[in-house]
């Protein structure tokens, strides 16, 4: 048995420590917002936050989240999270929608960083893949939320 805090709720789970966090969330805790896309940590559909850091849950052993706080799309409801979700809706970013929870988690992590001036456009720093090709709107959504939040250092380098 191990304890893990998911979306501000303490849970105890009884699984092998090497079980990927993604499958512990989906199978043992019933949270289906993080998706399986590739299983090798490349597509980003499974992105969640562990102690505020974006991780690819499909290649993260659940033991690495023991005694830590995990945030999934279901629990992303602070101001930045709400703004991102509302912007995603307003711009109709999602097409099939399958990758979009991971996209929002990655965008949240990017915008939640302390000042990190980067010459790279925001689009370049989000590397989750979307087969529907919604990148133009993802970029627009992140840029607009970034501007609304007044996050310094997140200038779009274009």
């Amino acid at each position, binding site marked *: 048995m191990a304890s893990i805090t998911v979306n501000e709720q303490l849970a105890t789970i009884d699984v092998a420590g090497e079980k990927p966090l993604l499958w512990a969330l989906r199978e043992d805790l019933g949270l289906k917002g993080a*998706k399986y896309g590739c299983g090798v940590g*490349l597509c980003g559909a499974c992105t969640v936050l562990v102690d505020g850091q974006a991780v690819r849950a499909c290649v993260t052993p659940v033991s690495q989240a023991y005694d830590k706080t995990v945030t999934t799309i279901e629990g992303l409801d602070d101001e930045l999270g709400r703004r991102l979700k509302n912007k995603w809706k307003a711009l109709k970013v*999602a*097409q099939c929608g399958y990758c979009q929870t991971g996209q929002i988690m990655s965008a949240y992590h990017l915008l939640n960083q302390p000042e990190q001036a980067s010459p790279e456009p925001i689009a370049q720093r989000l590397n989750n*893949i979307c087969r529907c*090709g919604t990148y133009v709107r993802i970029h627009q959504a992140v840029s607009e939320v970034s501007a609304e939040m007044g996050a310094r250092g997140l200038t779009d380098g274009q």
Partner: protein
Amino acid sequence: MAGGLHKPGPHESAHLHVTGSAKYVADDPGPQGTLFVLPVPSPIARGRIISMDLRSALAVDGVHCVLTVDDIPGDNIWGPILHNEPLLADGVVHYMGQAIAIVVAETEHSARCGAQRVELEFEEQTPIIGIESAIAANAFHTDPHIIERGDLEAAFESASMVIDGVVETPAQDHFYLETQAALAIPEENGGYTIRSSTQHPTEIQKVVAAALGIGAHHVVCEVPRLGGGFGGKESQASPYAAYAALAAARTGRPCRSWLHRGQDMAWTGKRHPFRTDYEAAFDENGMILGVIARLYSDGGWSLDLSGPVLDRALFHVDSSYFIPAIRVEGRVCSTNIPSNTAFRGFGGPQGMFVMEEILNRAADAMGVDSTELRRRNFYGEAPRDTAPYGQVIEANRLPQLVPQLMEESNYAARKRAIEQFNQTQQHVKRGIGFQPVKFGISFTASLLNQAGALVHVYTDGTVQINHGGTEMGQGLHTKMIAVAADTLGVKLDAVRLMTTATDKVPNTSATAASSGSDLNGAAVQGACLTILERLRPIAAQLLGDEAASTSVTFRDGCAWLGHESGVPFAKVATAAWAQQISLSSTGYYATPGIGYDPSIGRGRPFFYYAFGGAISEVEVNGLTGEYRVRRVDILHDVGNPLAPSIDVGQVEGGFVQGMGWLTCEAVLYSPQGRLLTHGPSTYKIPAAGDTPLELNVSLLRDADNPLVIGGSKAVGEPPFMLAISVISALRDAIRTFGKPGSIVELGMPATPEAVLRAIEHQRIESTAGMDKRHG
């Protein structure tokens, strides 16, 4: 709720997508006790099964049973067109990954362990891999399909320039983010509910019923939504649903299948690679006089949908150009890889690319601008208005669209600026390219152009709609809700769209060929209109003028006679119920007036054409071959869009996916038939950083299409081919590394290494040319 037909409004699932509560089949673990089903894949690409020993597999903890062809109670054979594909191998294997047996186990892990312990012995044969090998072995699925017209002999005799060569286009993996998934639930009295991530629920129903040896009425297929389809779930979702159903029938328990990414990539078909041998004749003004093209597609081991994919390729070799004398001939090669299948564009991109490459090479050889060459050869007034297969290109929007695109993208000034930039740069060059699109809309098998709907109005004035299409990201459900709300004159949130299911709307066509909203929209509208016809006399009574029932209109949630006073829709519905009037109706639509005879290569295969144009600008590094797409401008014709924002999204996404096909996605098989690119580590689809730095999409204004519901046009596939503009832009940049008049040799996909190879070739050509001059 705001929004509606032709207006910006919410996407019906947006609030579910962003909270993780949108349900996909892959998310559904099934009821308690659901078993996992996994195929046992063939480890060789071609041969005979000599022996199969299941004992070790059956001994694995958690394995319930292993089913082989002998365990199938009904028909082992299925197929989307020809009835010739075994669900489970019957003594012979035709490709690596072909299902030989299925393991049914408590967990996926047990199923995997079991599958690995099935002991197999084979008598191996040498597989046929690739189009050249198939041609050499005379291995074809089809006889030639030929479309021809005009006097080719005269065209080539009078030509001032003739070019010939080979054009090859690559395969492309669908890489839908949700891999193939299905859940089969046994119901009482011998029935089954199948939930499938499929574009074709009716085919799932048919294949499952046939495999189980039961009537179609015992099977219901439900499709909540797809995590991407792109054609990859048009035919090829069927086996995985059948495996789950076979296991459910054997065990009496719910069973599910869900592929890993690597399994999905290795076991399912892709976009057909094509090889085309061509000869083309031009006059001194660059006008095309004649084209001869022999197209070969790699069909893989079975026919699947390869016939109509090839047909669509042949229909689109003309692209947007009038070709007075032409002979196109196509055959589907038979090889030992998974059966290649539908993929956005369905052969259209492969056919169009042949002509675009001919024009690009001809422009190089003539030393003229490829954009100018394209514009000169456009379809025009009669007699330059008829496609090679005899259909007149009616309502051609390119004469209006192209000048507007050129002006809005500032093409001429940017072309001059690029030339100046290139003169000042040695190692970095820019290029610009133009691509027109004319894409035929309709299933080319004309009988498939039909759709149904079922609409219920409840006495409180709320509405449920069912239609035969599947939602896979294209926004079909959002459009259908808008159609129903607009027709009935009620608010969007009074309309609920129900899960696509074969017990609500039967005998449907696949959601494919960009036709979803054209066909299903007309069916939904038809059902709503039938109900309104029944409600008019009731409303007239309530409005106090029974004689005026034909004048009743429905809008703003009320029925009206004139503008004086309305009676709420709910009140009309309740009154109708009280008078024992049905508040439920089906709707049905079939596209009129289309048909094609392949034996003579003549007909009207398409109801209408969708048009578009793109200008792309690239910057290429001559030292590394790396490049960026700097800017893309698109003007696209979607008629009067049912949902403008969704249609723009389809254009953006289609363009990016088309870029992937031509620039970064390389499917590789070993000579033994093993897929070498089976995950995102080895197969690169476009990421955010590959997207054009600037992508401007506009929809052609005042473009009403009277043939289709709401004046709209299909949008799913046509924008895919706008991405060919990137290749023309790359060639434009690469050309400047050599001397004028040499033909750029750029292989597809145009990865940075392919671009560097083309640049090196240009440099060598230049040097060779100088030697000749000086010698």
